[in-house]
């Protein structure tokens, strides 16, 4: 295991060099993040489909329990139970539009991970940086449990547990626990825990900051200990269900799956679940007594329990929905946690947008009327009044507004329009609008995926490290 220890030390040193300006030492946060002996316990697996390039290169890396799809290269890196999903990467010949430029893509885009340590992290989408169209890089970076790196090339950064970096090129930053950043391009920032920041320069700037004393019971993280809180307990309680789907080679599909729907074999499906047409259920999703209407989706690390989604619902990576009834066309953003109770259900009206990293945790029934924008922490109707607004009213904001812990500057209509466009794009990419011939997406393309497994050295100096592996058609 010596080589793996050296590899981790090398990664820590490199990221500390990048974060020296912020005077941030990642060492105490990383050393015990995952015991290195875990790295020999799990195989890695990769998908093969006719719809995505197969170009995998792994050098001097550990990939324990990780899933890889598409064109991916790892060097000097440790990936632990991470999902590197290269099914939305750009293809050679595509044209990337950025401001007034139309830039041709010269070769298939690849995800390139070097000198990095990713723990239970999702990497997805494609590089939105016009300066690096063909390489979606992650360098000198550490991400803790359930972080999302979505369309965001990253260099020299540390992402805390449940942090998300979305459509943002990032260098030399610390992103705190449960913080969400979508800001185009950022560098040398230390963003505290529980920050939700969405910025489009010249258009709008949305910033919500959780009261830390109220966030901590859900998720908190400190030096020399793993992340703690309700979010972690919730996932740990369902760990054994996932163990089974990873251990058993041939699993029977537990529910009826329509022909235009994709149910990943590494998802957990518990009884009384119903899946309609054009639905996408990704690996590591968890459905229990869940009713998914046409075009709905449940992406990685989504938990949908005792809930009904009427259709065309986006449950983004890491979204949890419990004891809730969702109308149509509802977006539930990254790592949001929506929890009703059996006798106090949560009801969401059509066309509502639940911002990424929203927590709704109620003990009395709560109804969110149709067409609302919802953010932050909501435990009752008073919180809802403070942390929501109709999309119509939000669109009228022009200038600045402070609303509870939310600061917003810019044009509300632009903000709402940007989110609506993106939701439509996500549904389209996921295959929600497939009519039998047109608009196929992941729900259709991922149906005939097959998986192969790869293993690390189980003993000796290289214990836990995978041999150099090149996988091509």
């Amino acid at each position, binding site marked *: 295991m010596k080589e793996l220890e050296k590899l981790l030390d090398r990664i820590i040193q490199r990221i500390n060099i990048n974060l020296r300006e912020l005077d941030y030492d990642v060492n105490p946060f990383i050393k015990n993040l995952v015991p290195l002996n875990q790295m020999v316990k799990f195989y890695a697996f990769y998908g093969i489909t006719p719809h995505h390039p197969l170009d995998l290169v792994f050098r001097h890396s550990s990939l324990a329990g990780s899933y890889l799809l598409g064109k991916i290269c790892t060097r000097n890196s440790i990936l632990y139970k991470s999902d590197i999903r290269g099914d939305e990467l750009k293809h050679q010949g595509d044209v990337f539009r950025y401001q007034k430029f139309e830039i041709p893509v010269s070769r298939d885009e690849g995800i390139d991970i070097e000198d990095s340590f990713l723990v239970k992290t999702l990497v997805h989408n494609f590089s939105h940086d016009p300066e690096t169209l063909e390489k979606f890089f992650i360098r000198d970076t550490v991400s803790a449990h359930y972080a999302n790196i979505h369309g965001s090339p990253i260099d020299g950064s540390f992402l805390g547990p449940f942090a998300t970096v979305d459509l943002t090129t990032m260098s030399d930053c610390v992103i705190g626990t449960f913080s969400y950043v979508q800001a185009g391009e950022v560098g040398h920032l230390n963003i505290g825990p529980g920050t939700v*920041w969405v910025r489009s320069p010249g258009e709008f700037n949305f*910033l919500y*900051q959780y009261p830390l004393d109220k966030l901590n019971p859900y998720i908190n993280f400190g030096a020399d200990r793993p992340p703690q809180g309700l979010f972690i307990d919730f996932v740990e309680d369902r760990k054994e269900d996932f163990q089974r789907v990873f251990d058993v080679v041939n699993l029977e599909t537990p529910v009826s799956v329509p022909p235009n729907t994709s149910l990943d074999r590494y998802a957990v499906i518990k009884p009384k679940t119903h899946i309609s047409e054009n639905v996408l259920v990704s690996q590591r999703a968890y459905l229990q007594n869940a009713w998914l209407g046409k075009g709905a989706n449940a992406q990685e690390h989504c938990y949908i329990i005792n809930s009904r989604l009427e259709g065309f619902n986006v449950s983004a990576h890491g979204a949890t929905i419990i004891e809730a009834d969702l109308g149509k066309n509802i977006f539930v953003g990254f790592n949001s946690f929506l929890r009703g109770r059996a006798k106090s259900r949560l009801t969401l009206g059509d066309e509502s947008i639940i911002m990424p990293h929203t927590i709704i945790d109620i003990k009395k029934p709560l109804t969110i009327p149709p067409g609302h924008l919802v953010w932050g922490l909501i435990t009752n109707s008073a919180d809802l009044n403070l942390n929501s607004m109709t999309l119509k009213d939000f669109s009228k904001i022009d200038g600045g507004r402070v609303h509870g812990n939310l*600061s917003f*500057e810019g044009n509300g209509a632009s903000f709402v329009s940007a989110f609506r466009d993106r939701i439509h794009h996500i549904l389209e990419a996921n295959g929600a609008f497939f009519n039998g011939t047109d608009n196929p997406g992941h729900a259709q393309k991922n149906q005939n995926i097959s998986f192969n497994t790869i293993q690390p050295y189980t003993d000796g100096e290289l214990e836990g490290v995978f041999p150099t592996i090149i996988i091509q058609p």
Partner: protein
Amino acid sequence: MSDYLVKELMVPLSEYATVPEGSTLFDAVLALEKAQEEFDRTKYRHRGVLILDKDKHVIGKLGQLDVLRALEPKDDDPGEIGDLSQYGFSSRFVRDIRKVHRLQGTPLKDLCSNASKLKVEDFMQAPSEGEFIDQNTSLEIAVLQLVMGHHISLLVTRGKKIVGILRLTDVFAAIFHTMKECET
């Protein structure tokens, strides 16, 4: 430019407002008032107080802005407002939020009452390297030092001892006088 030396323009330390380390802001304001009463009324008013340690060495200066800064209520100005700039909010937006917080916060009378009890060391500015000038230095060099360092006063030294304070107002008066001489 002129034949003025710093020692001819400075206010001697004995005529300047000083308070010992450990004093309150209210002590400093009283010392300023007293020094002003005893000072030549034809000259510009003092604008600051020097803080002395137990050996009578100058360890800091307390200016008008420092006193106003002490009025800033920390509880009424949560850290998040200061953080807004790093998130790309405009200075106008941040200023507007501060105004709202201030109007909703502690009344000015209470702020003054609270601030008067605070210690001078918490708000004084420790003199930096460029704030010292020898008493025999010429006016030209003094002007250069004030302009380059954006200072409103310099501490005048004789050997290792601080013997006075050279104020921007007194330097300006000397320059003004020289200009008039040149034109007549």
